[in-house]
């Protein structure tokens, strides 16, 4: 406890100023530069605790819920206690709310607050922090604080459970704010939620570390060290542009981007075209603009299927599935050499099979 206090001192001083503003303006808290709008809404309703804080931000909603629980518990537990104490507590609770609104919004406070949050998962510390805030706000004597502490600790051990719920999200939020400020948001944003606090917990303990803990710790540190690993893993898929197929007249199909696709696959267009013709059992030619004119009607899906088969047969390496291959011709036999794994193998020659007689025999030269 005592060791944490010096850490908090600067923030507390900062807050003192703000909190002075609070005391002057109990309703509006216009001194808050970051979030003026919700506070004004509060002022309209006067008892902003329960109703209006909720919709403004999720953070506040969490805290409100906790505060509501606190209040309920207080009402339940405090029937036996004195009414004065009630008042005292209710006032600080309101301030607690205000401070709660101020903590996530102000950017200066969280970084200072966060490290202790990591250090101490105990909730009592946070309640103490809140009390410190209260004390600073009120500028009241320490006796009052002591009273409040005692009251809080004695009366509401049941309420502490709720306080835990109320406080923990605030720690998460602080972490998030820290992550936003930090250089790589992914690593820090992920880590603090479960891992950093967890590491602090189980690194000190003597028990055997579970596999899951170590695994998450490893990945957290790995991604923190090199954030480039985060995004690159899933983008390895081999993609080419879909073939753009148009109809020329009634009986011919134009495959416009055949050269682009061949370039993408690192294959000679002649090879690809030969394969297309033999597979589709037709003929055609390349026109002046580099487009392929295919005899017959073909839809984009059909050409896509044939291209897919070509890629499987002549582009992807059979050993490592990498599309990074080279096709070379040696002694009338095509060889496919993989750039990534170094394997080299011959591929089937493209052979057009039996071509049935279609159309008029008189048009056919051989017929």
């Amino acid at each position, binding site marked *: 406890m005592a060791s944490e206090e010096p850490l908090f001192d600067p923030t507390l001083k900062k807050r003192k100023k703000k909190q002075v503003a609070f005391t002057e303006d109990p309703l509006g808290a216009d001194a808050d530069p970051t979030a003026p709008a919700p506070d004004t809404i509060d002022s309209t309703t006067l008892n902003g605790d329960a109703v209006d804080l909720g919709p403004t931000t999720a953070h506040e909603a969490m805290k409100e819920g906790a505060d509501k629980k606190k209040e309920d518990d207080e009402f339940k537990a405090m029937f036996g206690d004195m009414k004065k104490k009630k008042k005292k507590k209710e006032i600080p609770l309101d301030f607690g709310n205000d401070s709660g609104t101020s903590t996530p919004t102000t950017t200066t406070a969280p970084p200072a607050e966060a490290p202790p949050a990591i250090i101490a998962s105990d909730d009592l510390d946070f309640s103490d922090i809140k009390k410190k805030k209260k004390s600073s706000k009120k500028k009241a004597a320490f006796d009052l604080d002591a009273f409040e502490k005692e009251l809080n600790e004695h009366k509401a051990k049941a309420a502490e459970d709720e306080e835990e719920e109320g406080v923990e999200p605030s720690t998460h939020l602080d972490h998030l704010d820290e992550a936003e400020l930090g250089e790589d948001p992914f690593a820090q944003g992920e880590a603090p939620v479960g891992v950093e606090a967890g590491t602090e917990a189980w690194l000190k303990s003597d028990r055997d570390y579970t596999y899951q803990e170590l695994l998450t710790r490893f990945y957290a540190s790995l991604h923190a060290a090199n954030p480039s690993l985060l995004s690159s893993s899933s983008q390895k898929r081999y993609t080419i542009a879909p073939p753009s197929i148009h109809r020329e007249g009634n009986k011919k199909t134009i495959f416009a981007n055949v050269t682009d696709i061949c370039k993408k696959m690192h294959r000679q267009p002649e090879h690809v075209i030969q394969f297309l013709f033999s597979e*589709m059992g037709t003929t055609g030619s390349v026109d002046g603009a580099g487009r392929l004119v295919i005899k017959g009607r073909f839809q984009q899906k059909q050409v896509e299927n*044939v291209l897919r088969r070509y890629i499987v047969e002549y582009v992807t390496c059979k050993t490592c599935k990498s599309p990074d291959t080279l096709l070379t011709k040696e002694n009338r036999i095509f060889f496919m050499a993989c750039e990534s794994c170094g394997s080299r193998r011959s591929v089937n020659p493209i052979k057009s099979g*039996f*071509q*049935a007689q279609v*159309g008029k025999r008189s048009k056919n030269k051989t017929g």
Partner: protein
Amino acid sequence: MSVQNLTTFDPFADEGDPLGDSQDVGSQADYIHIRIQQRNGRKTLTTLQGLPKQYDSKKILKAFKKEFACNGTLVDDEKMGQVIQLQGDQRAKISNFLTENGIEKSTIKVHGF
């Protein structure tokens, strides 16, 4: 005494010479090719090429014609041998028919779009 490691053993002995059996390297003789050709309009033609010798293509053609309710013919090609020609797109049906009657699916190659 014989040392096992020193005995000469050809692991590919029972495979035979891969290049000796067929005339040209990488021939398509061991595959059954099912192809499709477009005719005028929506009409198509399916050709079955490379049927193993032990099957009687005439009888198989007859079975195809009855099963698929289409006409067909047997074409003698100098290079490809006997080729079954069927009217319409019968590729999937032929492939099913052949696999159901005990031909390895890996030996069947379906071409076309």
